[in-house]
């Protein structure tokens, strides 16, 4: 297709076509064995197209492609238009989403084989990819909201994939409700922006308008904070992170795709996309930074003593997302390109190594017949050599082992926080504190990641008794994505940024970032490698890994020195935060609900009384419809006379 925007439409619609095809296959007999084909073909084609677009990007004028808008609906001043916008930021996300989803789709073929609802799984996964691409591409806040909710719906359907299991159903409900809490803020924020921006809803138009007509500081801060609510819910940040660990009830590839690599990064992407707005509001930005920093440390702490491998990975996802928010929270104090590129870089590398970690965990789970509790197995490195190697690559990247992808992206975030603490006029001290917190988080990350690694793969072999002899490496269709992602997790970071600066040069062309740069005073940023940061984080990672090795390399779980025991207990009980939520929020809400129920029943009685009234009037009116045509004619004439009297009275008044 010659028109580049046509290519973008094709990328968007391919997964939708895949979803529809897979859904149509559901009743067919071969749907149980072939339903994966539409999703994988669609995602792979979309990925190819995205890469094609990436290579052709230099020829695009102004660094942005806008589709011809058409009006979806309009009421009064509200014009909601369907329009897509592609810039370097969106294209990077698009490429990541389609590539990772192709890998995970392939892995699912082996993982989900023989499951009930095989076609349903692939239909919803494909629909998810469509929604995620739409979310990235939408150039209208309401369209964005539509895809945002569709993504949430797919997440709900996939967490509750094993819907006969009550815990899965409850987890799906929890995820849906908690993210919805944030979405309320998001919708309000959109409406506020609509009002602030001269009744426009297109993202580009809103940015242009707000940068030329700057609204009062409080209003733009409020709007940004409301948008941030939505981002916090979707990206599982404090205090709304509680749904993500429970979301691990879904099949593991779902956790890898939706709850690690793509959907949960939607909030990060939203804030990055709205960088021109956040640049206008230092308060919203510093709030983002604190939320991110707190979440990163808190989730890293909670991950320390978990025994469920997937739960460890889930908390680590929350923690890493916190890093990304922290990077975004330096926007304004440092040049916007640095802040957004740091977040985006970590987003990309995290997508690779976390998807790899989840798929490796899935491979373990597949081999062990669904068992994922670290207390029940260990020493798997001989039985599952490939999985072991892949998990090691992912864990090393996550822990920040030098030269792997996670190392470089984390360093960039630390660099941006350091720059912020030096340059921020108002919040320098705050950023310094945040820097210390993020360094501590880096140490904890290395520790808990390798704790999980050692417990699962080192020491003497421990297997559940019923599985002796059955444990073996999975088929090639599951191994291939693991290897691809492992290569990405090891090498992508070094290739993308520190030596080539390809990513930063590419993303810096994004018009929104250039717009954001016009309102901040921070000096421009030159990409370079900061060797001080690199050496500090190397030391931290080495310390964390060494600690974990010292404590757990024997592979025997939970033999802790007495000093650490209370800390680990606290972490294992998740700081009693769920209990606090239960006592502070859920109990009062239940009490309120009970009161409301009583009040509602009283109202209901009253309303039943009221509702009976029309019925009684109706009984009385029905007498008049007696079927006599003479009476009907008389009634009509009487009505006419009444109307005439009304007119005559009106005249004589």
């Amino acid at each position: 297709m010659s028109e580049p925007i046509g290519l973008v439409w094709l990328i968007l619609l391919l997964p939708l076509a895949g979803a529809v095809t897979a859904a149509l296959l559901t009743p067919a007999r071969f749907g149980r064995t072939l339903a994966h084909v539409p999703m994988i073909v669609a995602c792979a084609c979309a990925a190819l197209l995205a890469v094609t677009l990436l290579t052709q990007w230099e020829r695009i004028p102004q660094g942005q492609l806008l589709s011809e808008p058409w009006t979806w609906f309009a009421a009064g001043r509200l014009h909601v238009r369907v329009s897509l916008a592609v810039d370097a930021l969106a294209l990077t996300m698009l490429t990541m989403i389609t590539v990772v989803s192709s890998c995970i789709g392939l892995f699912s073929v082996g993982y989900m084989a023989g499951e009930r609802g095989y076609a349903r799984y692939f239909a919803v996964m494909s629909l998810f990819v469509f929604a995620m691409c739409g979310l990235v591409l939408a150039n209208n806040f309401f369209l964005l909201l539509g895809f945002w909710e569709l993504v949430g719906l797919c997440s709900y359907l996939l967490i509750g994939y094993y819907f006969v299991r009550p815990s899965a159903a409850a987890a799906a409900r929890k995820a849906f409700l908690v993210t919805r809490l944030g979405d309320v803020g998001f919708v309000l924020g959109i409406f506020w922006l609509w009002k602030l921006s001269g009744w426009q809803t297109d993202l580009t138009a809103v940015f242009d308008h707000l940068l030329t007509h700057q609204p009062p500081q409080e209003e733009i801060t409020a709007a940004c904070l409301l948008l941030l609510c939505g981002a916090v819910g979707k990206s599982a940040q404090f205090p709304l992170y509680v749904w993500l660990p429970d979301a691990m009830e879904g099949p593991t590839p779902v956790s890898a795709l939706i709850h690690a690599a793509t959907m949960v990064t939607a909030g990060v992407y939203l804030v990055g996309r709205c960088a021109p707005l956040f640049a206008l509001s230092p308060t919203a930005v510093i709030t983002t930074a604190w939320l991110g920093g707190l979440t990163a440390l808190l989730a890293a702490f909670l991950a320390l003593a978990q025994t469920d491998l997937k739960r460890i990975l889930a908390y680590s996802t929350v923690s890493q997302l916190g890093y990304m928010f922290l990077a975004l929270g330096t926007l304004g104090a440092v040049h916007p390109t640095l802040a957004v590129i740091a977040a985006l870089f970590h987003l990309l590398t995290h997508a690779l190594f976390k998807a790899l970690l989840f798929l490796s965990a899935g491979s373990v789970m597949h081999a062990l017949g669904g068992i994922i509790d670290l207390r029940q197995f260990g020493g798997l490195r001989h039985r599952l050599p490939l999985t072991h190697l892949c998990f090691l690559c992912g864990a090393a990247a996550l822990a920040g082992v030098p030269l792997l992808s996670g190392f470089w992206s984390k360093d960039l975030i630390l660099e941006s926080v350091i720059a912020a603490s030096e340059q921020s006029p108002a919040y320098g001290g705050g950023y310094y504190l945040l820097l210390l917190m993020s360094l501590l988080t880096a140490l904890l990350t290395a520790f808990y990641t390798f704790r999980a690694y050692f417990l699962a793969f080192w020491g003497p072999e421990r297997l559940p008794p019923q599985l002796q002899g059955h444990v073996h490496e999975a088929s090639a269709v599951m191994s291939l994505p693991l290897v691809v992602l492992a290569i990405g997790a090891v090498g992508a970071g070094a290739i993308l940024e520190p030596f080539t600066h390809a990513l930063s040069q590419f993303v810096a062309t994004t018009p929104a970032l250039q717009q954001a740069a016009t309102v901040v005073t921070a000096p421009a940023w030159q990409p370079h490698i900061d060797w001080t940061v690199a050496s500090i984080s190397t030391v931290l990672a080495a310390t964390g890994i060494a600690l974990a090795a010292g404590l757990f390399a024997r592979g025997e779980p939970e033999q802790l020195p007495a000093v650490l025991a209370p800390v680990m207990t606290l972490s294992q009980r998740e700081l009693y935060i769920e209990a606090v939520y239960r006592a502070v929020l859920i109990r009062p809400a239940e009490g309120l609900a009970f009161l409301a129920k009583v009040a509602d029943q009283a109202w209901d009685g009253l309303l039943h009384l009221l509702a009976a009234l029309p019925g009684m009037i109706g009984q009385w009116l029905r007498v008049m419809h007696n079927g006599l045509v003479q009476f009907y004619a008389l009634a009509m004439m009487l009505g006419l006379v009444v109307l005439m009297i009304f007119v005559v009275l009106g005249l004589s008044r």
Partner: protein
Amino acid sequence: MNPWYDDAGAATLGSVFRYVIPEAVLLGTVCLLFLFGCVYNRRWLWGCVSLLGLVGAMLVAGLYRPGSMAVAETAPVFTDALADLVRWTALLSGLVLLGLTWPEVPSSRAAEYYGCLLTLLAGVALVGRANDLLTLFVALELISIPTYVLLYLPYRSATTREAALKYFLLSVASSAVMLFGFSYLYGVAGSLKLPVLTATLSQLPTDVLSPLALLGAILALAGLSFRLTLVPFHFYAPDVYQAGPAGVIGVLAVLPKLAGFIALGRLFGWLSANPAVLPFPPATSVPSILWILAVLTMTVGNILALRQNSLRRLLAYSSVAHSGYMLMGGVIASAWSEAPAATAAAIAPLVGGMDALLFYLLAYALMTFGVFAILTSLDTPDHTVDNIDELAGMGRSHPVRGLLLTIFLLSLIGMPFTAGFVGKFLLFVGAFTAPAAHPELSRLYQGLAIIAAVNAAVAAVYYLRLIGVLYLREPVRPLPRRWAILPTLTAIVLAIATVLFGTYAQPLLQVSQKAAPRPAPAAVQHSSQP
């Protein structure tokens, strides 16, 4: 004085004939049907001939577009965007009705049935083009008279005879009242031409507006109210709906209302060339009467529908209620004539009244035709489905038709993502934001919107009860398991349109807004000066 040629340089009938060729094609087909129907009367043959006639009329209407008329003031017919919209609505309704009525057309009287149907359609199309009171009257009667025949044609039983007779008697009475009103209007204005009539009446200062003109307006309104089933002129509806054949009732529920509202809009100036200058502005008591009629109609219709166990009576009352909602459009349009220029400019992008009414009419046609398509598909010559209990369990026994009926009922409730929702939304917003000279008046309009919203909530009760019956109850006795391909296909098309225009309303809205342009702020300014 001959009213057809009342001015010097008047248009002859011949010179305006080219504006009504599609209608002439329809009536020519009718002549064929009546002439040769007695020779060989078969449903498939005459159905095909009617289809050909309709398609021919469409081809003519689509391909032959005579320019605007030089002597529009004096010609008996004329053309504008609204006239075209009405004609296309009539022709497309014709296609829908051919599919919808197929099972109930008696083979032995097929030619007569289709003849009456096409006459009626020609009448509807002519109502949009009528430029004087006489043409308007003739066009309206072209709708009424075939209906008398149609009501009795398919199933000739004592009950249908009674229904046809009732409709005939009351309709004739109402036509007489209307004609009486027309004569007063003619007497006051001195012309039968609608543009002259509205211009003359609107130039009279309101305080000396002739009582005769007001009486004429009320009489004409009363006559049209019969067609619109406004309370208290609605009494025939439940009886006729209950006894008549479903397809004909579908016609009766939609087309006379369409014609009636168009006629009312033309007569009261809402749909004239300049809707800012009305013969009966809110200063006269006519809009207040419309307000009262609207409230009365929707409330009485909904209340009576609440306790109905007869499906057809329920639909009759529901159609009464919908007329009440639609009449709001007229109230809003009247309000716009006295909007202060500043207000008009400030809220110009909002609803103008008649555009909302037209949208609602089209949406109402979609969903009502849909409901009756399902009903005709369930009826047999020996038994018509009437008691609600007969539909119990239809969601399982007839899944496709059950789903379609649910879609139409949801649209009648006004659920989002259906055309009915958009229509109600436009009308309610229009009433809520209607401009008013005094705060009391504006409170009246807002009150109208609130009453209508309460009514819509009440109406949801009986529609939802019906949906509940479809899906939640066990069948009492099985419905006929007969395939009715044509009505079902028609219903599928209508359901798709209902959902489509509910999700993406812009095309239909643009058509309505083109046919009924809102008064331009400049024009409003002009009229606000004495």
